[in-house]
């Protein structure tokens, strides 16, 4: 088994095919989208492949150490930051192909007009621990 992080972006991903902001959808289309996401996670729990999923608020801060005895420097949010994570799902699957397959399904969640959003999701493998048996 290998763990993968599926990342959804507010900003920074290539433009999806069906690119309409959610508040311009009909309420029924929003419900259908939510149901799809919910069913997807529930199905992965059933197959034993779901690990975790969280959504993030769009606004955050940048923080860094500013030397001994000084409070940390905070800044931002920076409008020019290209990448803004909206949320993630962690899955534990048998193969890289399976991770791609599931990300593809998630990207097919319905949006405006009930048609798939074709949203670009980022799939990142977790670094693993070394195997016990090496020869």
């Amino acid at each position, binding site marked *: 088994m290998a763990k993968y992080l599926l990342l959804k972006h507010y900003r920074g991903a290539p433009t999806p095919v069906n690119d309409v*902001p959610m*508040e*311009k959808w*009909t*309420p029924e*289309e929003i*419900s259908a989208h939510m149901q799809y996401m919910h069913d997807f996670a529930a199905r992965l729990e059933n197959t034993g492949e779901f690990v975790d999923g969280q959504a993030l*608020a*769009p*606004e955050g801060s940048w923080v860094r150490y500013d030397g001994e005895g000084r409070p940390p420097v905070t800044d931002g949010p920076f409008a020019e930051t290209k990448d803004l994570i909206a949320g993630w799902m962690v899955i534990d699957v048998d193969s890289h192909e399976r991770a791609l397959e599931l990300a593809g399904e998630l990207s097919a969640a319905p949006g405006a007009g009930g048609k798939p959003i074709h949203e670009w999701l980022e799939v990142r493998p977790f670094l693993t621990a070394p195997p016990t048996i090496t020869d």
Partner: protein
Amino acid sequence: MDDVLLRSLTPEVLGVLVRRGADFAAAEDAVQDALVEAVRAWPADPPRDPKGWLITVAWRRFLDATRADAARRRREDVVDEEPAPGPVTGVDDTLRLYFLCAHPSLTPSSAVALTLRAVGGLTTRQIAQAYLVPEATMAQRISRAKRTVSGVRFDSPGDVATVLRVLYLVFNEGYSGDVDLAAEAIRLTRQLAAGIDHPEVAGLLALMLLHHARRAARTAADGSLVPLAEQDRDRWDTALIAEGVGILQAALARDRLGEFQAQAAIAALHADARTAAETDWVQIVEWYDELARLTDSPVVQLNRAVAVGEADGPRAGLAALAELDETLPRHTAVAAYLHERDGDLATAARLYAEAARRSSDAAERDHLVRQAARLNARR
């Protein structure tokens, strides 16, 4: 076996151990061990005196642990004789535990966790699941909390307001995992109300009951939020409402008004309206005015603006809102609602979408996006 009945004995048993001279942290561990043992042993062999059984087992566990500790330290002065329990009144012990677990030296998250374990008898695993953190993290939080209060004298009186704040936090966490925190908060507040005569304890209990009564109506089948005005009032729990109103009236009659009684009074006025249109908004505004005198919470001012909008029209509500800080959470959502009531759907839709972007609550964000979508679809 009734898990809640078992757990309701927790604070008394713990109180007895502490009274016999066990330090709080060790006694608390011993009681947890005894609870686990009870869950294992009672189904096959139920004791005649559950409380006595728990005290005996917990005390034995405490002595075993103390002996093991002492052995590790190569010391011989082990407590061996079981001292006679002092003049125990279970209620007093329970009350002291509430105060200790909500001690002002604890952070809110520590006080909540310690209360749920030491007073509520929940396991660390259950508390961890309810708050969506790893069990090891919650175990550390609880053991640090116990160390923090270990120097506090068990017989020192506490401030009931700190206890009420902790119970309020537990109630507001609602429902996640296999533990119903709202129901647990109600149970703990009932237990507190049984042991202490205080109108604000009654006020908080009434507030919880009145809100709990609406729970089934508050979410739709798909999990989305249903606002108060659109809730199916036939799904409200009338028995809980009647109980809450009764408790509130008795508390108000004592003429020592507090924040929780005022909040409960507002909840009771909502509960009293058979339809949203029958809501007595004028009285609700008056209660918000009382509440604003008792607390400087800006949330109260925001909710008051909504009530003014209902009582005196959306323009009056917007005027009340204009006096408040625009950066307050939910300020934009309230503005959107009032503009919609005023018929300015374009502004309302724009503000709902903006409020959704600012929301820090997933269910609320979904709700606000839906509101924006609903208005955009109508225009």
